[in-house]
């Protein structure tokens, strides 16, 4: 075991730190041009799409460089490296791996330049965790697909220009071969026949939507991968680092904020941080976050050594889900009535951050696979238990 960084890695860390010292103005001093400048500068450094191959415009960063970049950005609470979140996380890697040359040239530069938002259309009203039973259908006639159906809980759809979606082109109504016959299509959201209806979540945000498709025409050139093989497109095998270092750094920041909170509020007449239950709970949070950090480093070590990584990363997803729910909930419990106030209400604490956390967690916890699904993955893929 060693936790040392090589000279090259240290040099890269220094480069990132120097860049941040020079270009990350304090929040109070940021003007209206700050974000545009920031995006251009990090793009020039090739830190947007840093893990992507250089020949498509990515940074070609190796696993350790990815870890270092994420860690330093998270520590500095820097703005994101590119604002096209879904494009950078999901759509881009799919296009790089399965797309045609024309698709790569058309879409990848725009994603890297944060030109517009993408969203991903997976869930349907009756299709959630059992994604492969999706029903939204596309029928091909010559060079055109015609889509009919609906997608729901589509994050960022109210702001997106494009959707990468899964449709059924074959095996209608068959539960036997439901993974076959699914096709991935890239669809412009202003195409006639599409209606996006935002849905308000319980925290008051309107970031997801239901999308209706009524005889929507999509050219065949916008198909991603082969017809009927869309299931594979959702799972990219690009060499992304899997240490969850960015999340861990953010969770540690949150724990520090929580520690400051329990030092300034009182509980039963004395500082909350002197209460034995509070002290214990803070320790439990720290043990979980620290175990996430160290689990991540073990998985990273496997990745560096080229050993196969199975579904171990579900472990950290489960911890993250648990922490997202329980830290926000713990904070508003400690705050009592004041913890119930949202940002615009009279005595809201920390601008309503904790109340918002206590209502906002489903985004992270349910999106990308619920905890129950993560447990199925561990049970079946790692422990080898029979599928249910």
């Amino acid at each position, binding site marked *: *075991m060693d936790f040392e960084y090589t000279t090259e890695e240290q040099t890269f860390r220094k480069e990132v730190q120097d860049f941040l010292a020079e270009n990350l103005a304090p929040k109070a001093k940021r003007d209206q041009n700050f974000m545009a400048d920031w995006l251009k500068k990090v793009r020039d450094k090739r830190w947007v799409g840093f893990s992507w191959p250089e020949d498509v415009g990515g940074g070609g960063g190796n696993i350790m460089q990815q870890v270092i970049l994420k860690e330093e950005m998270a520590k500095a609470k820097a703005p994101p490296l590119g604002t096209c979140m879904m494009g950078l996380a999901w759509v881009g890697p799919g296009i790089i791996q399965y797309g045609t040359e024309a698709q790569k040239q058309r879409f990848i530069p725009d994603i890297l330049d944060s030109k517009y938002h993408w969203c991903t259309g997976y869930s349907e009203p009756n299709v959630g965790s059992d994604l492969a039973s999706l029903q939204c259908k596309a029928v091909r006639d010559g060079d055109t697909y015609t889509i009919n159906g609906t997608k729901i809980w589509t994050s960022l759809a109210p702001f997106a220009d494009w959707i990468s979606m899964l449709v059924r082109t074959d095996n209608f109504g068959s539960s036997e071969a439901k993974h076959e016959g699914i096709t991935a299509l890239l669809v412009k959201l202003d195409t006639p026949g599409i209606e996006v209806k935002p849905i308000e979540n319980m925290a008051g945000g309107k970031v997801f939507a239901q999308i209706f498709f009524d005889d929507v025409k999509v050219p065949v050139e916008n198909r991603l991968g082969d017809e009927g093989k869309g299931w594979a497109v959702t799972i990219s095998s690009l060499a992304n680092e899997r240490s969850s270092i960015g999340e861990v750094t953010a969770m540690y920041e949150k724990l520090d904020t929580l520690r400051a909170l329990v030092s300034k509020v009182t509980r039963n007449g004395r500082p909350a941080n002197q209460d034995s239950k509070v002290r214990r709970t803070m320790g439990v949070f720290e043990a979980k976050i620290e175990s996430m950090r160290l689990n991540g480093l073990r998985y990273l070590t496997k990745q560096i050594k080229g050993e196969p990584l199975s579904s171990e990363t579900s472990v950290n997803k489960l911890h993250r889900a648990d922490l997202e729910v329980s830290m926000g909930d713990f904070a508003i419990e400690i705050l009592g009535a004041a913890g119930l106030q949202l940002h615009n209400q009279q005595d809201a604490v920390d601008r309503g951050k904790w109340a918002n956390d206590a209502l906002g967690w489903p985004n992270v916890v349910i999106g990308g696979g619920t905890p129950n699904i993560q447990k199925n993955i561990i049970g079946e893929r790692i422990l080898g238990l029979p599928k249910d």
Partner: protein
Amino acid sequence: MNFGFTDEQTLLRDQVRKFLDERCPSGVVRKIMADEGYRLDLWQEMAQLGWLGLAIDPEHDGVGLGWVDMLVVLEEMGRSLYPSPFISTTLAASTLSELGSEAQQKQYLPLIATGRLIASLALLDNTDCPSIDNIQLTAREENGAHILTGRKPFVADAGAAQLFLTAFRWGKQLYLGLVDREQAGVSVTPSATMDLTKRTGSLELNNVTLLSEQVIEVAPEALARIFDKGAVAVAAEMVGAAETVLTMTTEYAKDRIQFDQPIGKYQGVKHNLADMFVDIESFKSLTYYAAWTADESPEEFPKSASLAKAYASDAFAKIGIDGVQLHGAIGFTQEYDIQLYLKRSKWARPMFGDSDFHYARIAALHEAAAAADEA
């Protein structure tokens, strides 16, 4: 960056596992449980293999490795529930190596490394928690020697040990006395717990004279470091033992048919096993890191040891119970091994501090760090 083991460490793990599988399978473990709690022939074989002197300096007939190597051995011992005074003797050797005089090291370490001396720690006067506040035994002085009269309860492996590193106070200082079992005034009452793979006992001292060469003055932090090593050693055994519970219970869930299906197909069972996996992965990582900090980053060691033992204590306690419960009635039988792991989880929980102790300590460490930052 490498949070994994070297080839040598992997080889060591394979060796220990093979040795225990062949020489100390469950049937032998049960024989030792019914007997005096360890077997001298296995102990001496381990000495020959170098495992008793693993962290002892080569100058004193040891191998000169560190706590990460020790962790590998302990994890495998936990997997097999190997009954022996290994943790006690290892901690005593480690304490002598760090704190003992050259003469003391020369006298005892070669004997330990070669399997001729079993030693243990007799630190606390009560079972509250591993804190120096629970060391009250006080010496009186007579002709330049320290005289001890009192009792140390729950001394691990008391029946097997020949040498006891006994904590006491004199004036404002803390000391460790090297008490030989054969000395005048020393008597030992061996005892057992519900976990028959782990033995205990009491050390009674009646006007026991300690000459200056039998005494080590210790700082509170040095004593805390011994407790932390104990916590990590127990946590390492917990990792191996918990993994066996998961393996045994997973196999059972694949084989046991109810309602025409293997019970592992049902989410009530499957998710319970997945929870075990998540917890084991996590306290394994914490324990590995704590073992690394023991030698390589001592300033981090108190917190990393507490995080590991706190998480492990709660998680393994639940895993022990769930392992038995998922086996149904057969898990409740004396004949089935799963219950031995439940008993081990009960034993391991309070040893060198339970989760309440360690989480409270973590809060105190944060406060101390914040106060130091301000000053």
